[in-house]
């Protein structure tokens, strides 16, 4: 009885959710028809940053791992696709696939070294490994273009226009977000959250904590690589700042702002920060000041983020049918 009620309830709420998402996606798909080009470009940037922040949140919010240097995977994805498109004659599709794959490989290698430690030590170690990657990219002029970066990446014409790259970013982000959603709601994701809450206890019920964290690293790095590839299709360039640790911190702020115990929080955070940067940036060169003030207010008053805050005060949906017993 309990079970049937709760599945029926779940079904109806899932239906509503699906409907809401379809409307949002439809709106997003129609945007290029009535919005100026600049806003379409801005939307694409929001989607990419949001995808990157969500992939970070897989490790940070759901896995409780101090992923301090997630931008490295983003940057490596971007550089891989740029270098392959510019310097090889391989089919573009292969280059686009290679971006996330190389990012995932880097995630695996860095993860192997880092998951031995936890919390702050993990974060620091990742930060130092990441800055090694950054400095190599920064200095290796002949291969990566050094501090100039790579510009004029020959993105296939189908997706190189503003609208084309927007639709490509939109479709890829939706697919990637859906995949991450499925992963986080699978047994793997459940156990990941258990590890976040209590790694010792998880190990005690037979979970291979370090292996689980390593796989998480690879998954998070893979989707960061996807975001990096999308960035190149929109911007047509890759530069060392994509791997900088300040960018990593900015992604963490997006997660914090939106709420890191929620799935869509990082996307919301990305939307707020990217639009703020663009809109405030029009009026003043001191937009980071605004970011800093927001960050301080968040830490003092809203440590669970915007979505986290609203979720706490909304009734838990599955609660009522359980009491019908």
């Amino acid at each position: 009885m309990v079970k049937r009620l709760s599945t029926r309830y779940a079904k109806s709420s899932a239906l509503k959710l699906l409907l809401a998402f379809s409307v949002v996606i439809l709106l997003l798909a129609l945007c290029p028809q009535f919005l100026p080009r600049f806003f379409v470009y801005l939307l694409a940037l929001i989607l990419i940053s949001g995808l990157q922040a969500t992939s970070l949140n897989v490790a940070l919010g759901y896995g409780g791992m101090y992923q301090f240097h997630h931008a490295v995977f983003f940057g490596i994805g971007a550089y891989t696709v740029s270098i392959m498109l510019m310097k090889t004659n391989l089919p573009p599709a292969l280059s686009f696939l290679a971006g996330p794959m190389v990012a995932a490989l880097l995630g695996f290698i860095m993860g192997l070294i880092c998951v031995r430690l936890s919390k702050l030590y993990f974060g620091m170690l990742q930060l130092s490994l990441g800055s090694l990657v950054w400095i190599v990219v920064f200095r290796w002029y002949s291969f990566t273009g050094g501090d100039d970066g790579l510009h004029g990446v020959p993105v296939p014409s189908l997706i190189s226009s503003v609208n084309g790259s927007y639709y490509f970013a939109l479709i890829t982000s939706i697919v990637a977000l859906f995949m991450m959603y499925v992963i986080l709601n699978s047994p793997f994701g459940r156990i990941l959250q258990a590890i976040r809450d209590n790694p010792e206890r998880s190990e005690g019920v037979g979970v291979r904590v370090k292996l689980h964290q390593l796989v998480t690293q690879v998954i998070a790095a893979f989707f960061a690589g996807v975001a990096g590839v999308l960035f190149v299709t929109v911007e047509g360039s890759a530069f060392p700042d994509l791997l900088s640790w300040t960018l990593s911190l900015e992604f963490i702020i997006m997660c914090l702002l939106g709420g890191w115990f929620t799935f869509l929080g990082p996307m919301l955070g990305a939307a707020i920060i990217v639009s703020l940067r663009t809109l405030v940036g029009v009026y003043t060169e001191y937009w980071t000041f605004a970011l800093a003030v927001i960050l301080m207010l968040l830490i003092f008053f809203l440590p669970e983020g915007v979505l986290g805050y609203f979720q706490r005060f909304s009734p838990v949906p599955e609660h009522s049918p359980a009491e019908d017993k």
Partner: protein
Amino acid sequence: MLRIRNVQKSFGDFQAVIKANLDVEQGEIVAVIGPNGAGKSTLFKLISGYLAPDNGSIIFQDREIAGLAPYRICRLGLGMSFQIVNVFDRLTVFENVQVSVLSHLRRAFDLVTPAGRVAVEQTMEILESVYLANVKDRVSGSLSHGERKALEIAIALGTNPELLILDEPTAGMSPDETFSTIHLLEKLNVSFGLTILFCEHDMELVFSFANRIMVMQQGLSIIQGPPEEVRNNQQVKEAYLGGTR
């Protein structure tokens, strides 16, 4: 089933367990008692793999398990419930237990099936047996102490252990909760043949519930035997009545 011989563990200069021996047979309920600081919790952590012994052997089901990682020991059929409540605070009660069932079913790396459809029945069965089914959707961080303690046991049961180790299972529980917990453990022991090893401060409970009792004092195991024998043992009387030296 479990055979511990001459196990020793020290932290720096402090010898927590000097020499411990313990036998647990299939289907038994065995209690470990002793004054505070006798080394009971350390011994339990040595058995479940959270600590590695400096010396001695721990044999479970004919396998040496001393120094194995906790997850491997768990997979051999040994479940552990902690003295300090140790649950997954941000997950719901249902998810807490489900995690351990999923791990037992080796579904940890299943990335695609919605978790809401896996292991639901096993999890509900366990929740019902510990009387937590009605709070299954509450976040475990918001439970009362007694409920969290029961959840702690439920998590341990999720891995379907053959030997369940409980470090002070009823500490901080109300008399009602204590009664139902003990009742539950007895039921598990009788109907499913679950072997139980626990330690406890409540002597009345220990002597009425355990088949055999092992007494520890200052890191040494003094005696192991049926309740009557332990009750009449001179050394035990000294250990408890003479106070800890």
